[in-house]
């Protein structure tokens, strides 16, 4: 299973990078989201995956023992998911504003800092 997940991570990275390299701004955002998902999966995978053993202490116990999933990557990813929501929202609005002002969806039209472009 790990091998397949590793391949899926590779696919997510590849498609994310490919989308970011496109000229359309919407594709850029989709690419960023895919790449973000890839990173989450990468972290999750490198923390080793465990099936059916969430890192929650049993109500009778006081210490977590035996086999359990690593909580650290989970905590990392949890915040990453929420933050990337903020990032996506901001990026989407940036695209929207840009389109409204410049009337273009083409990133190549934006590669200048001049106002009159």
């Amino acid at each position, binding site marked *: 299973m790990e091998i397949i997940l590793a391949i899926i991570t590779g*696919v997510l990275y*590849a*498609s994310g*990078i490919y989308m970011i390299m496109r000229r359309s701004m919407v594709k850029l955002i989709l690419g960023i989201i895919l790449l973000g*998902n890839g990173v989450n999966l990468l972290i999750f995978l490198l923390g080793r995956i465990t099936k059916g053993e969430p890192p929650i202490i049993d109500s009778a116990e006081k210490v977590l023992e035996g086999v359990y999933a690593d909580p650290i990557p989970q905590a990392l990813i949890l915040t990453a998911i929420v933050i*990337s*929501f903020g990032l996506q929202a*901001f990026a989407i*609005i940036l*695209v929207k504003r840009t389109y409204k002002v410049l009337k273009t969806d083409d990133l190549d039209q934006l590669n200048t800092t001049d106002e009159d472009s």
Partner: protein
Amino acid sequence: MLGAVLLGFLFSLFLVFAGSYFRGKLAVLSSLIPISLFIYFLTFLPQVSAGEVIYENHEWIPSFGVNLSFTLDGLALLFALMITGVGSLVFLYTAAYLKDHKYLDRFYGYLSLFMAAMLGLVLSDNLMSLFIFWELTSISSFYLIGFNNDKADSRKSALTALGITGIGGLLLLGGAVLLGDVAGTYRISEMLMLRDVITDSPHYLLILLLIFGAAFTKSAQFPFHFWLPGAMKAPTPVSTYLHSATMVKAGVYLLFRMTPVLNGGEIWHTILISVGAVTMVYSAFHIIFRTDLKGILAYSTISALGILVFLIGIGTQAALIAAAVFIVVHALYKASLFLITGIIDHETGTRDVTQLAGLRKVMMPVAIAGFVAALISGGVPPTLGFVGKDLIYEATLHFKDNAIFLTIIAISTNVLLFYAGFVAGVKPFMGKLPEKFEKLHLPSPLMWLPPLVMTLAGLVFGLFPGLIESAFAKPIAMTQAIEFEDFHLKLWHGFNTILGLSAITLLLGTVLYFTLKPKHALENAIAKLDVIAPKDLLLKLSEGFAVFSRLWTNFFQTGYLRHYLSIIVAFLILLLGYLIFTDFSLEIDFSTLTELTIYEISILLMLLSGVLYTVFTKSRLAAVAALGVVGLSFSLLFLFYSAPDLAMTQFSVDTLTVILFVLVLYKLPKYLKLSDTGLRIKHGVLSISFGILITLLILRVLNEPKNTEITEYYAENAYKLARGKNIVNVILVDFRGIDTMIEISVLIVAALGVFGLLKLRLKSRDKK
């Protein structure tokens, strides 16, 4: 002492805010700062001449061994007095020289910034703080040279000077770090004890070269000398202060300071003597070809700096004393000559020596100052210059090898310096006053008193050399850690070889002055050789560098996101790919892998098809929907693999993201097919190889054993310390609570950004 150093910084800071009130008469008041500092340092004179060394230490970055530690010994005191003394006169002089200048406040700001930096430089006992002050002097010099910033010439000269001295600064930093590494301390006073450790270290030669590089660039030694004539574009008070009396001597000061630490025999002597000798002769001969008064003075300054380096290279006690005395001599006469040149320039509007004559009739006190300055410069008895020159000859005559040769070099340089002094100090005042200058009158005493004071001081010190001896020469000799022999400075040594040599110098100098007249023809002749001069060679080099960096930049900085990304990705693929290929061992232990069931396979298929559909669909809405599928597959995946919190969060965020897209997407245009197929294939190949790389990396990492120490700590203590049983949540709200706090702040910033981007702009547009 810290206060004394900071005073100048504080004053320039004050001028930033109160500069606009700083006009006219008020400018004179600012000279109270250098004057009071001068008096402050003067009070240390009795202690220091008695051989005492005063230390003061303020912690700054103690963990790096970088502290503001100051030391006041004979050498530091000499420089401190020179900086504040000449500084006082220059501050006064400037008040008249730039009386109605628009940026007078700015000028004083730079000037006091420089003064403070220079004081810090000579007082620093810590190599790192010395380096910082060293750089500050370069920076203030840059602003002062480029003070007339509306002239392209000024700006270019300022940049050249900054470039050269900046390179020197870097070398100094390198030298200081190496030296500190070898010695284990940055304190110069502690390095004195470690001389053997340093000279025996394998890095000794490198340290020496780095320190020399710093000193030579700052003190305008051949072949780095050319920034100094360019620096004469600065207003005359700056040339006086920075580029003759103080800043350019920082390199000499550094060599002086380092003599007891680094003087390790042959190589030290050879390099310093040869560089000093070449510089002093080369630039002394240049004097003949100059007609601009400041040009003459610039080259004679370089020549004098060459003499100083040369003397330090000789390194005997006699030579070091000669150097110490010559520093004083040079500061007195050269600063005076510069100020006089400034007066002439200010009044007549020209500095061309072929046009100036007979000015004594309109400005007698200036003429007197000029005459005395020329006498000091030429080493005519009974001035201090004579004492200084005698000491030089004594040093060269008693050096162990090549004494005759070195003496001849010294004599020829001195002859030319004699000529330079007379051309600059006497010639403009002699002869018949041209008609156009008849209306001139004497400027404000603020301008002519400073040079007069300095030249008279040169005269007094010459008559009573004991003053210099007890105040500076002896304490400095003691700082040099060589075996101290008692000595006395005298004006009259009786009839001996040295007197003969002095007489020859004076005679030849006089002959030269009367036979050789500055002509433009000579100047033009030498200009033709500029092509092979170090300056032009270096300028061409720098131009070539600029062209190269422009090409380089244009190649990488195209402004296209995909180019940047391709370069980064390609570089990573090459680098990591190389590593993986050279050291690839992929052993997968299938028994440790989690088993694959039908549920997971179906989720993964869903995920995969979602991803591929997102990439390849032509409809935006379909892409968004596919993205939703990807997100949902993720939350299922998290659920399967023991991360219920993640599953819940991913699910909720996914819902919100899709809503977000749907809200905005209809306002956006349809996909355009912008890239051609070739580009798509290229990008596809890049992306796929990057994906493969990531996959391989993951498999490699999965091979390695995992460090579970932190995980176990959390598992152990989640309930004991934080009374929580959901460890993920405990980490978020307790163990790493501050991180979470910052993360929610980021979220707030993003929300505010969205709000601002949409609301505020719309409002301002509505107003239009």
